[in-house]
Each structure stands twice: as structure tokens, then as C-alpha cells.
């Protein structure tokens, strides 16, 4: 369970979100510039609302406070058991594929690390990429390795910021299907930001609709995105 109460200003843009995410998988749906990435970065602890003015953030995960700006409290990003996969994979270019996935597993012994890396490569269907240099990976391949790197430490909360933008529809659906099985098994709550309605309908996730920095609706996809669904069906029918 993730509880969020965030007020943040970035230039003229105002983000104001107060909600509780109960579903294991929630899609944060909204057009570009609606505040999805800002919200995810605040949740990950990478972006802190100012401790003064009208900004504030209070975020908790399963009852544990991660951020409480009113009291100047914030757990550092690496200690939140939270992973964020952004649209740009940002794999460390000087490290191998395996070293990238292992980066967050320093606390584990060598044997466990090796097993975990193999498990992650299997999960994202990237066994064939092990021998490749990080710089040689395509956008979609790099996104899969970035996902493996983020999941390797087994976070409690996974934040996905349009992470499958470089994958084609079939590859994206296959990966989503694998994740839908794997994430609940390890009790990883997931929040996936997207502006693509097909991503929202590809899973059985709840959908949070974010418009102009405000949360407009939260519920099942076919209710929250009824209008988007009609639009997509009309396009298919008309095409």
C-alpha cells in the first residue's frame, strides 16, 4: 500500500496529488506534461519538494514513512527499497551487462549474486545479451537490462516511467505478461506511468488518471479510461 500526499511546484507547473494505491499494479495514465515523471521522482526520493512555501510531500510504503517533508524527514533513494526505471535506460556505459545488473547487489555473496543475475536475465528474456557490450545494445534491449537491474535487488515498490517505449507492441506485451506473474510472487507493488492507453489495457491494473498535475480518477481501467477505450475502438473500426 502506497500513501501519497504531494504538493510541488516546478516553474509554473503545480503538482497536487493525494491518494492511496492499494492495487499491486497501478497504471498512472496521463498526457505528456501531466506530472507523471515528477511524481515518480518524488516517490523515488530523487526529487524533494522544498521544505518551505506551499510545497510538501508525505509518502509511505506499507505503513513505513519514506518522506515527510514537514518534519524534514526523507529516506535516501537507495534505502527506500524502491526502484525506478525511466524511459532512458541509463545503463552504466563502462560496465558489462552483468555488472550493470549486479550493481545493486553488493550486499549479497557472489553465489547469490550470480543466481539473481541469471534469474533477472531469464525474466526479461535477455540471456542472449550477456556477451554484448552495453553500448552496442538497441534501445529496447537496453530497457530490458535496465528493468533487470532495477528488479535485481527485489524492491518493494517498482516505479516504471514509460519503460517500454523502445519495445514493439508484441515484445512489450510479452514482457508485461512475464512481469505480471513475477512481481506478485515477490510482493513488488508496481506503479507504471504511461501516456499510451494500450499499456493500461494490456494488464489487469488499476488506473490513476493524472491531468495537469491533479489526480482526476482512480479505479479499474474500463471505467477510468472509458473515453480512451472508445477512442481506440473507433480508430480500429475506422482504420
Amino acid at each position, binding site marked *: 500500500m502506497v500513501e501519497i500526499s504531494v504538493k510541488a511546484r516546478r516553474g509554473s507547473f503545480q503538482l497536487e496529488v493525494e491518494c492511496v494505491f492499494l492495487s499491486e499494479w497501478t497504471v498512472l495514465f496521463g498526457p505528456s506534461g501531466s506530472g507523471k515523471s515528477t511524481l515518480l521522482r518524488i516517490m523515488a526520493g530523487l526529487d524533494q519538494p522544498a521544505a518551505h512555501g506551499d510545497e510538501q510531500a508525505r509518502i509511505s510504503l506499507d505503513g513505513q514513512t519514506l518522506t515527510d517533508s514537514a518534519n524534514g524527514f526523507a529516506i535516501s533513494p537507495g534505502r527506500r527499497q524502491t526502484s525506478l526505471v525511466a524511459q532512458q535506460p541509463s545503463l*552504466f556505459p563502462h560496465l558489462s551487462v552483468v555488472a550493470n545488473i549486479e550493481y545493486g547487489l553488493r550486499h549479497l555473496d557472489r553465489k547469490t549474486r550470480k543466481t539473481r543475475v541469471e534469474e533477472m536475465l531469464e525474466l526479461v528474456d535477455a540471456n542472449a545479451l550477456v556477451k554484448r557490450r552495453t553500448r552496442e545494445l538497441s534501445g529496447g534491449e537496453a530497457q530490458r537490462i535496465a528493468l533487470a537491474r532495477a528488479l535485481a535487488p527485489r524492491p518493494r515498490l517498482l516505479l516504471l516511467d514509460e519503460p517500454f517505449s523502445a519495445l514493439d507492441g508484441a515484445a512489450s506485451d510479452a514482457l508485461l505478461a512475464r512481469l505480471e506473474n513475477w512481481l506478485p510472487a515477490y510482493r513488488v507493488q508496481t506503479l507504471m506511468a504511461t501516456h499510451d492507453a494500450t499499456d493500461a489495457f494490456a494488464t489487469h491494473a488499476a488506473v490513476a488518471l493524472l491531468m495537469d498535475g491533479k489526480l482526476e480518477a482512480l479505479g479499474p481501467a474500463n471505467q477510468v479510461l472509458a473515453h480512451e477505450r472508445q477512442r481506440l475502438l473507433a480508430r480500429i473500426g475506422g482504420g
Partner: protein
Amino acid sequence: MDWQAFALTLKLAATTTAILIAVAVPLAGWLVLGHSRWRGAVEAVAALPLVLPPTVLGFFLLVLLGPRTMVGRFIAALLGHPLAFSFSGLVVGSVIYSLPFAVQPLVAGFAAVETAYVDAARLLGAGPVRMVLSLLVPLARRSVLAAAILSFLHTVGEFGVVLMLGGDIPGATRTVSIVLYNQVENFDYTAAAQTSAVLFALSVLALGAIYAARPGGARRG
């Protein structure tokens, strides 16, 4: 050519460079990654030797490390001899004098590393030390090389600080720059030309190494 002075100069430059890299890498990492309100002040202090005349810096250090101050007396008691007019004193002076030549390329190089890499490492639990060693140093390795070569060369060419702090003691504080000065003072222009040629060649070689290592440098085309 005074080869004893040449060897002493290389020893001084190598020692200074090693100390500077050990000091400047964590300092630059702190300046780039840190959020302390003292960052601006520390960066300004680290840049001070750039604008301070070397003779002034040498004089300050001579007084500070001499028997007139508590610091100087404490060091003399600790080492059994004062730092002024010794090789160790020259190392201290050179490290302070060349500090900006190590810190500034490192800060520029570390700051140029994409924020997305730093964010990813933070999320994966990397602390500042790991962040610097596993991410910033390898990704900014050309800046580390530039910092090392600039520190080395700047120390080789040092004159004012060395003369004020170390004097001209053969085998202990007489460096090539002082030898060159002595040769010119004695109107021995032939020897001075040889000494200058060696220093010039060393500088050109080192500069060539820096540009060869830069992606847009000597290799382009």
C-alpha cells in the same frame, strides 16, 4: 644539465601528483555530489592559488611552517626538523600551489557525467564513495588524466613557491627551475638553453598525451 636537480624535480612532481589525485578526487566528488552550503566557499579556497602570486603563497607557507608559528613548531616537534627548507616542505607547498590544477578539471569532468547515471546509482544504493570510484572516475577518466598531467607539469615548472619555501639546497630543494634561474644569472646561456629544451620537451609530450586522450582531440580526422 643538472641531472640531480632533474631527478629531484621528477620525484617532487610525482609525489605531488599522487597526493593531489588522492585529495582532489574526493574533494571534487564532494563539490559535485554534495549539497552543503559550504561548497562555494571550499571551491573558492581551492581556486585561490590560481590568483595568488607564487611568491606570496611561498612566503605565507614559509612563515606558517617555520618556527614562528604553533603549526610550524608542532610539525618540527613531530618530524624532528622544520618543514621549511626540506623536500617534505616543498611537497606541501607544491600540493597547495597545484591544487586548482587538479580540482578544476576533475570538477568539470565529474559535473559532465549524466545526472541519469548518478540517479540510477543512488537508487541502487551507492553511497558517495562508491559513486565517485565506480561511476565518476571511470566515466570522467580523461579528466582524471588531465588533472594528473597538469598537476605534474605545474609542479615541474614551479619556481616562486619552491624558492621561497625551499631555497636552493642541492639534492634537497634545488629543482630544475632554480637551476635554470642560476644558469641565466651566471650568463651560461648554453646550459640554460639545454635545461629549457628538456622542460619544453616534457611539456609538449604531456600536452600531447592530454589531447590524444580527448575524444575530439588529436585522434579526430
